[in-house]
């Protein structure tokens, strides 16, 4: 069988392995877990997939305080209590106070959607485990209203992680895993060109030389990422910096290197 589907988009360059992972995850109906260095486009991938397949994207941003339950539904008891005090209309209708979370929204949607669970590792350790049943069966039960919310169309689930916490094995077993490697020079050039189609050859080459040189410095604390290179190329273009000045003067290098120690280091090293 030939896998069809996601082939990258005009503004998102994906490696073949990544495309294969996306398509296989869709075909096998499993969540796709994406890991990778910050700035390698993990979150952007979901946007690109949604765009390419013409589906709506629902983003569930995870914070350190997010609970699994919030993704399903929230029963706003306090609002109901207040309403009850003042004798508002419809207080006896619990369903009025049930608000579906992002996962619930994705299940309840009339058409298939792409659901991005962004930075799942930010949440509590138990968080992924609490979602196992829901992601497997694509349904959940609302106790208060005795209603089962079942996915009308199984959403395409993509999950990103920055590897800040280990995810539980039981959760990992159910996922397809892809690690986004840091792009090599060729792919990187392609990526930058997607953002700036008319970037000057010489400028791009010099900027990339310096960029990879900085990344290869051993003591650098925070390695610059793709998004930082893109910002830098943008800044260089807007600033109208001549290409041959880039290596010697390091203009706007603060865009690429964010830490004071790193700035010192870069200024004092030989980047050739």
């Amino acid at each position, binding site marked *: *069988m030939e896998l069809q589907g996601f082939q990258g988009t005009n503004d998102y360059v994906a490696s073949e*392995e990544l495309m294969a992972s996306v398509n*296989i995850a869709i*075909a*096998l109906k499993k969540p796709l877990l994406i890991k990778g260095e910050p700035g390698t486009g993990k979150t952007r991938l979901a946007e690109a997939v949604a765009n390419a397949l013409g589906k709506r994207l629902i983003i569930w941003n995870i914070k350190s305080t997010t609970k699994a339950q919030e993704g399903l539904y929230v029963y706003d008891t306090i609002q109901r209590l207040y309403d009850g005090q003042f004798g508002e209309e419809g207080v006896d209708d619990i369903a009025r106070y049930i608000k579906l979370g992002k996962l619930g929204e994705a299940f309840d949607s009339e058409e298939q959607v792409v659901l991005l669970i962004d930075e799942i590792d930010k949440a509590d350790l138990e968080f992924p485990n609490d979602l196992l049943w829901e992601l497997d069966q694509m349904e959940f039960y609302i106790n208060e209203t005795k209603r089962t919310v079942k996915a009308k169309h199984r959403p395409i689930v993509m999950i990103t992680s920055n590897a800040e916490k280990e995810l539980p094995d039981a959760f990992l077993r*159910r996922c397809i*895993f892809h690690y986004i490697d840091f792009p090599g020079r060729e792919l990187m050039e392609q990526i930058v060109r997607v953002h700036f189609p008319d970037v000057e050859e010489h400028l791009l080459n010099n900027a990339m030389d310096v960029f990879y040189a900085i990344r290869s410095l051993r003591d650098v*604390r925070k390695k610059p990422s793709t998004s930082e290179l893109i910002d830098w190329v943008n800044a260089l273009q807007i600033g109208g910096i001549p290409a041959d000045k880039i290596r010697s003067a390091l203009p706007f290098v603060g865009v690429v290197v964010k830490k004071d120690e790193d700035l010192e280091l870069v200024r004092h090293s030989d980047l050739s």
Partner: protein
Amino acid sequence: MFIKFFETLRAKGLRVTLGEWLTLQEALDRGFCGSSLTQFYYVARMILVKSETDFDKYDMAFEECFKAVQRETEVGAQMLRWLDKSDMMELAHEQARDHLNKTEDLQIDKEDVEEKFRARLKDQDSEHNGGSFWIGTMGKTSFGNMGGNVGGVRVGGQTGYQSAFAVVGARKYRDFRDDRVIDNRQFQMAFRKLRQFSSRLDIPETELDIDGTVDKTCSNGGCLQIVMQKPRKNAVKLLLLMDSGGTMIPYSTLLNDLFQAVHKSNHYKDVKAYYFHNCIYSKLYKTPECENGDWIDTEWMFRNLDSDYKVIVVGDAAMAPEELYSDTGNYRGPNGGLSGYEWLKLVKRHYKRVVWLNPKMAPGKAPWREAETAIKEMFPMFKLTVDGLNRAMVKLMANR
């Protein structure tokens, strides 16, 4: 199918489960891998391996199982290319290429090809197209791209998948293995572990404050007014004791990183750090330079930092037996009437949770390192790697 691969993966320490294995079978059934070993490599990896730290183990298992297959496919592909003459338009062209290929010795042996490739790379000084010796396009040597020779080395041009064996051979995921010695970022990650077992400090007000609610409601004339409060917190207090002795000098950057990481993780209720030289005696130094006078009494620490502090001792535990056992063993400062061993016992008695991190720990019992073995018996000792630090953090948080 491929049950040996499954077993090899498990033998290499990958916890591949039956469920994942069945998923892979489904993927194979549905033909997602085509008949390509390289595709199989990626598909199996994305289904079976769930962390980039395990890619290296996977690579090694893959190589072990499919190394033999690799050679066969290469020959097979070449044979297929020769046999595939269905396109009559190309026949003459193909035959010419074939002929050239056959007259040249068959370059299937990869090492041989690579050696020739390197030699020619050294000698070649210009662009070549259609030739039979140099690296170029449309030629018949094993090198370059768009050439007629299929078993050769590709030079530049469009790359699709990285060939499985190129990836395996490069072992490009070796750096991700979690049993290597750690760097600063990974330190910070590990210290977050300590947070996730404690109650968090930055939690929003989610608990109903009953007393507050009753008060407010009463003062509101009986109209309900709800007051929320933060859940009770049980913050972690951390005490860091670091060896700054001569044998630790090779690890000074590592210690510095550890220190930075602890200070950057500002979610602890309190962090204290002191230094010692080789072993803990009656004084603890405030700075890593361990200058006499710039110190606190170890007993002061016992009095002021209560037993709830979680203690991480970092040191190589490499000292002469008398430094540990003699009550005059401290050649650099006062002993305080007790041997280092006695002082360590006091630490153990005072604090409920102590772990020892050792950057160069000998595996198992090491009779030739007497001090280390003795300390290992007293404190749970972990090697200062990501894996070791993680286990140490778990130990610090776990109930006795």
